[in-house]
Structures are given as C-alpha cells and as structure tokens.
C-alpha cells in the first residue's frame, strides 16, 4: 500500500510513491541518492542523520518520510552554494573531522544553532551538540570549527 509524497529537498520538489513505513533518512538516501546524510546508530542517539525540516534540525531516522509530505528538507548537499558553506570551511580549516562520519550531522546541528544564536559561547556550542556523537572524539576541533564559522558568518 503505497502513498504519494511531495517533498522539497535542497530547493528541488520531488514527487515519489513510497511505502508509508519508509523513514525519511531512507527516502533521502535510497530514493533520492543523497547519501551525504549518514545512518549511524539508527536509534535517535548519534545524530549522524541530522537534516533540517522546515529549517529545524531533525534526526531523519526518527521520522517517516510521509510525515515530511509538503515540507522542506535541507541536507548537507544543500549547504554549499557555489562555494562551501562557512561551516564546511570551518571544519576544513580547523580539522573538525577525522573519519568524517559524524560531520554532516554535526554541520546540520551547528547550522540550526547559528541560525538562532549567531554568536554562541563555547558552552552553548557544546550544549547544542548533545545529540551528536563523534567516535573519533574530535569534539574539541568540532567546537573550534563552529566558532570559526560563526566568526566568518558575522563578518
């Protein structure tokens, strides 16, 4: 029993016929082949699958694609606009990644933070990342990367 959905992803409207049980992360990865959004724990803990839904950070393994029908999704692939997003540059400049698996989720969560709080303190950055895990334990440089981006976005 399939259902039709119309979901805007990174500015493009996609219409697909899907099973209602399909999770949003599988819709992105397997229907749209946007594999920048990763599946880590698949239990709403690690945050690797974080995307934006109507501008707010969401763990896309915890929502069905049908719930996003009519809504707008931004994934890591939608962050660069001709050139890298300041957060992407920040992670590059400050060595904010080792294996890189958690990076798309980290960037999407950080983008949500910076949208509401353009000049966060180190503590606020660390608090905002409570739902994103890094197994390389690169948190220190991740925080520096976000600070780098915040600075660039303000200048």
């Amino acid at each position, binding site marked *: 029993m399939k259902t039709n959905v119309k979901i805007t992803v990174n500015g493009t409207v996609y219409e697909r016929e899907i099973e*209602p049980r399909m999770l949003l992360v599988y819709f992105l990865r397997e229907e749209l082949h946007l594999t920048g959004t990763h599946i880590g724990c698949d239990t709403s803990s690690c945050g690797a699958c974080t995307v934006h839904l109507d501008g707010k950070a*969401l763990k896309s393994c915890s929502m069905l694609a*049908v719930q996003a029908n009519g809504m707008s999704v931004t994934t890591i692939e939608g962050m660069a606009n001709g050139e890298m997003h300041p957060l992407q540059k920040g992670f590059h400049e400050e060595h904010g990644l080792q294996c890189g698996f958690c990076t798309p989720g980290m960037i999407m969560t950080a983008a949500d933070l910076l949208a509401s709080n353009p000049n966060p303190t180190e503590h606020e950055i660390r608090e905002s990342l409570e739902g994103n895990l890094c197994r390389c334990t690169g948190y220190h440089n991740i925080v520096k990367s976000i600070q780098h981006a915040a600075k660039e976005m303000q200048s």
Partner: protein
Amino acid sequence: MIPSQIAYQKPESLEEALNCVGDLGDMCKILAGGHSLIPVMKLRLADPENLVDITGIPGLKEISDAGDSISIGACATHADIANSRPIHSAAPMVSKAASMIGDIQVRNFGTIGGSIAHADPSADWPAVLLAADASINMQSRSGSRSVKASEFFLGLFMTALQTGEIITSIDIPKSAANANSNYEKFAQPASRFALVGCAVAADNSGDALADVRVAFNGVSATPFRDGGVESALTGSGLNDESISAACGVAADGVDVMSDHFASSAYRKSMAAVFAKRALKGLS
C-alpha cells in the same frame, strides 16, 4: 531498522481524526511528532496496522493563556514549550523540564501529548505534570473528559487514555506553588532519560510552606507524588535543615526500579539528592 507495513492517514480536522480513531480502534496508533512511537515501531515493539497523524489538525499545537491556567496543545513540541514565556512565568519547572528533554533535534519535533501517551516512566513530563497538578484533556467521538495527572499515569507505559480517545491539551493551573517550582534530573548520559527526575512546587508566600508538591519519575515503574517529603515540608520554612530532613524520607515505601544503569538502592539515594537540589532551587 524498518517498521512493519502500515497504512497512514492525516486528518485535517479533529472531528475527522476522532472518527478515524473511533473506527479503527485498537488497529491504530495516534502519531504526533513520532519521537516516542517511531523508535518503538522500528524495534517492532509496537506494530500498529494504521497510523493517524494528528499534526494536521488546526489549533492542536497552540499554547494559550486560559485565565486560571495555561493550556498546552497536545502537539506543542518540547522546544515550543521551552520557549514559551507564559509557561515560564506560570510554572518554571515546565519550561525547564522541556529544555532538558533529549537533545535539540528531539525537542524540535517531539510533542508533549505524544510523550505522555507513551508514558515512559523515565520520561521527564510525568513528574512535572504530577507536581503541577495538571489536567489532561482527552476527546473521543462520544465526548470529552479531563483527568488529573495523578489519575492519568497508571504504570509502565500505561495511562488512562482509552481506545478511540485523543489527547487534545494539557492544562497547567496558575498557582502560587506552580509559579515557585523547579525540576532537576540525573540524566542517563546517552539517552538523556531520567535515571531520577524530581519536580517540586511550593507556595512560600506565607509564614510557612503550603501546597507542597514533590513528584518523581525514573524512580519507580509508575511516576508518583511523594507524600512523605510533602508532609515533612508542609508548615515548615524553606531552609537547608528542613530540606535535608524532608529528603531523608524520599521514595520511602516505594518499589524502586533497578536496571543495569542504577540499582534500586542507588536510585533511592539519588532520589533524595535530586529532591534536595530541586528544593534548593525554590525561593
């Protein structure tokens, strides 16, 4: 992990939704943010044939001032609640608990109605709603009813919500006690669920404490008001001695949970510690 096959409906009015859940009965689950339900469906601990998504119903997300109470729509997200000024002035423990649930991503989409319908004993809402003396408003196609939080949480994942009913809103009374309230929790570091959560509210406007309410989640399979702590504090002043003495009886006589995170003896001593911290936050 992939849930079992389901059919999905998203009614556009409350009447349509009530007819849907009335017709489907036990064959459906109500879906709001899905942040409790989808994970258990992925684990196949829940296996509904139908989902009725109530987030398309107008008004169900609203937080409004109803005069002698604040009404929180069932589909208000934890983030909506954490950011609401009227809630912060009427009952600071409600805002604080909302801001401590899960993580940013979960708070952005998880809803209060969904969380309390799921009734995880380690979730943050039960203690807060018990201490706030909140009412839960429910509707079915045969009518509406309102029950106190104390009659709503019945046990491990068990509530007073009947088949065919939808939670529509939660009322937080405006009272001197709720205006002077606090919530503290000992969070399990990975899940952020409460190993112990304690919500307290007390009217300290007179000579002595009155209308004292102390409630716990995470401690036993059913969240509860702690009558021992409440009566020890009632009529006394709010100071280190009275708080220490009262917290000495925290969770006495309660069947305290034990799991691989915390033994029952440890949980019980943490109940006293977190009750003390919560009470010290009152003015």
